[in-house]
């Protein structure tokens, strides 16, 4: 008897990987990908097998460790949010050139509409850039089934495979029919010299990668996840990933509206199927969540004479995630009328929790910054980014992981004073340490606040890689121990914190202030 289980898209991927014989997941937490690794950490089969699932310091260390596991012959999974692809891009792109031994699946969870992100970059571009196949599930069942296929394809073609999901699938639950749990690969380290990417070898490896391209397209052409659903219709729809569901939802609401559909969940784009679709209709609509990756490919394949509509033509919104309403409109299907929008409504943005230590940090920072007309506080990525919003309005910037320290340094180099960086504990070990070393080597007049709540709070309280090591890391990088100051951020300690801030701003070198108090959320969970 088959087993059905209610799973988030993320959980379906996790279980699919375990059942496909996974030996290790390597990841840094990031919405909407976090639940994959968390699921594997708690899964009884994964625990019994000793599948590696400890959090990594950042996406680059994760990607490289997974590549090492693949080198040793085992199946490895790397998980991250879309912007994590930027962090691991060096390793990812070069892993396509080395090729793999054990199957290597790289899971990127994109966040169109930026629910919890600073951009809506589309990870499928990275796969095109690296020239590797992509799997993009349309639903939770496919997410589960695809992982095993992705590992198999990775081993057959000796290439890493990208699996791309979007927030709506990652964080949506549905019943999934489960298969059997397969054994892990044997330990069998590679004997291939192609892993040494010296130019002479890399050139040969790159030719090999180019030669694999037709096989990748062949795999898409035969993929069970791609399907041409032909109707007697003028309109052909290329429906990628979860966009397929919105197309089916709209067409089932209006039986008079007919369209042929190319359901697309595995790339590179199968050119034969696309040409068949184009030949059977008069125009093509490309429906894809994220950026117009496929729309551009379709235009290039069919030539300027063939009408292709999508996000680039304004038939679908150029930004933001797709939804059933925007897709229905692009298909000419009229939606139902709801009630009129309410008149009595105010926005309710997220905010720092009551009692959170970051609040005391910002209170102290704002008080001191007000004494210096030129002061700027450079922010970073985490809960404490909410310090940019009222009531604090403290931050001048928030760009990418670690940029608080390096931007403050660059601004200080240009003469800005005082330049203050605020970074969380986990973000600091992710990408802040190297920037701090630059500042130390330059003797930059910089005040760095590492707001340490002993966890990776924004994503739900995962272990933070540097806990109990921050003073040692900072002094090890060369910060004068007299200018590494630890405080406890509470309302009663604000006079002490502001005094220390003034002292360290006055110091013409790198100082680090570490306000340390446990996150209210993890504290609450422990008390339960």
């Amino acid at each position, binding site marked *: 008897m088959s087993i059905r289980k*209610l799973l*988030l898209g993320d959980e379906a991927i996790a279980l699919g990987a375990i059942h496909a014989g996974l030996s290790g997941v390597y990841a840094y937490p990031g*919405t*909407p990908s*976090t*639940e994959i690794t968390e699921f594997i950490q708690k899964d009884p089969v994964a625990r019994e097998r000793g599948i590696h699932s400890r959090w990594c310091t950042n996406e680059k260390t994760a990607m490289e460790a997974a590549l090492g596991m693949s080198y040793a012959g085992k199946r490895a999974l790397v998980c991250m949010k879309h912007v994590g692809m930027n962090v691991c891009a060096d390793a990812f792109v070069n892993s396509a050139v080395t090729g793999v031994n054990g199957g290597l699946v790289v899971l990127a969870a994109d966040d169109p509409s930026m*629910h*919890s992100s600073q951009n809506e970059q589309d990870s499928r571009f990275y796969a095109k850039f690296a020239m590797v196949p992509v799997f993009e599930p349309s639903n939770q069942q496919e997410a589960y089934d695809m992982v095993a296929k992705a590992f198999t394809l990775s081993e057959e073609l000796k290439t890493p495979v990208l699996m791309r999901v979007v927030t*709506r*699938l990652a*964080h*949506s*639950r*549905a*019943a999934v029919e489960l298969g059997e749990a397969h054994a892990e690969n044997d330990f069998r380290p590679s004997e291939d010299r192609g892993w040494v990417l010296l130019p002479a070898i890399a050139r040969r490896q790159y030719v090999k990668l180019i030669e694999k391209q037709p096989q990748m397209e062949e795999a898409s052409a035969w993929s069970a996840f791609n399907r041409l659903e032909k109707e007697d219709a003028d309109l052909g729809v290329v429906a990628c990933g*979860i966009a397929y*569901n*919105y197309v*089916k*939802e709209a067409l*089932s*609401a209006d039986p008079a509206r007919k369209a042929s559909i190319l359901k697309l969940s595995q790339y590179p784009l199968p050119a034969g199927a696309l040409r068949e679709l184009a030949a059977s209709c008069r125009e093509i609509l490309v429906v894809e969540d994220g950026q117009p990756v496929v729309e551009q490919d379709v235009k290039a394949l069919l030539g300027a004479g063939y009408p292709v509509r999508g996000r680039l033509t304004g038939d679908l919104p150029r930004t933001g995630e797709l*939804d*059933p*309403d925007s897709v*229905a409109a692009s298909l000419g299907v009229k*939606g*139902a*009328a*709801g*009630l*009129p*929008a*309410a*008149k*009595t*409504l*105010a*926005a*309710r*943005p*997220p*905010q*720092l*929790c009551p009692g959170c230590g970051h609040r005391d940090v910002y209170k102290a920072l704002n008080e001191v910054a007000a004494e210096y007309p030129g002061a700027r506080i450079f922010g970073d990525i985490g*809960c404490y980014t*909410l310090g940019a919003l*009222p009531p604090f309005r403290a931050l001048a910037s928030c760009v990418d992981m670690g940029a608080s320290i390096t931007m403050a340094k660059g601004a200080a180099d240009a003469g800005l004073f005082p330049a203050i960086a605020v970074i969380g504990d986990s973000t600091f070990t992710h990408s802040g340490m190297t920037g701090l070393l630059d500042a130390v080597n330059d003797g930059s007049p910089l005040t760095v606040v590492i707001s340490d709540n002993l966890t990776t709070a*924004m*994503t*739900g309280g995962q272990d933070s890689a540097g806990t109990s090591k921050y003073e040692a890391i900072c002094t090890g990088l060369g910060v004068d121990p007299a200018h590494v100051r630890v405080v406890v951020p509470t309302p009663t300690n604000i006079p002490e914190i502001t005094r220390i801030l003034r002292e360290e701003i006055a110091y013409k070198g790198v100082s680090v202030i570490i306000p340390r108090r446990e996150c209210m959320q993890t504290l609450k969970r422990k008390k339960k």
Partner: protein
Amino acid sequence: MKTDIILCGVGGQGILSIATVLGEAATASGLQLKQAEVHGMSQRGGDVQSNLRLSTEPIWSDLIPKGQADLIISMEPMEALRYLPYLSPEGRVVTASKPLVNIPDYPDLADIIAELEALPNVSMMDIETVALENKVPRGANMVLLGMTAPFLGILTPEALRAAVARVFAPKGEAVVEADLLAFDLGLQASGK
């Protein structure tokens, strides 16, 4: 047959527990289900919502199209208003009446209540006070679920009640009893 539900409130109010019970009841009743949740930044005291679709037939979209929701279930009165364009004109709002004021520009409560009362179908109650007065202080969300039970259509109140017991069983008998009491209080308030 299908029922599309928007569950909403403020991050931390426990809307995902309501979703878990509905999901458990739906699965036990052999229904198809899709449930899109909000995780991440908005959970920190911001507005949160979950789209829950239950059906006897396969469900395509994880998100509910505008004008198609049968129910808005809200832990907070202003949050109930946020999703009105998604509600079918025949749909119903089931909401807590007590506001959670954590923003400086929270509108006048009287205006919110007046707008809610003007809706075609609305059930409103101070679930927090009901839960407190009946000594089930953590059961406000189950009072709300009980209030909703007679209007679900696709699931019976009995199926929901049984799901409450199963979902909270791992937390012990006392928690189950408290949550069942809270559920029944809500159910009675809806006149059933």
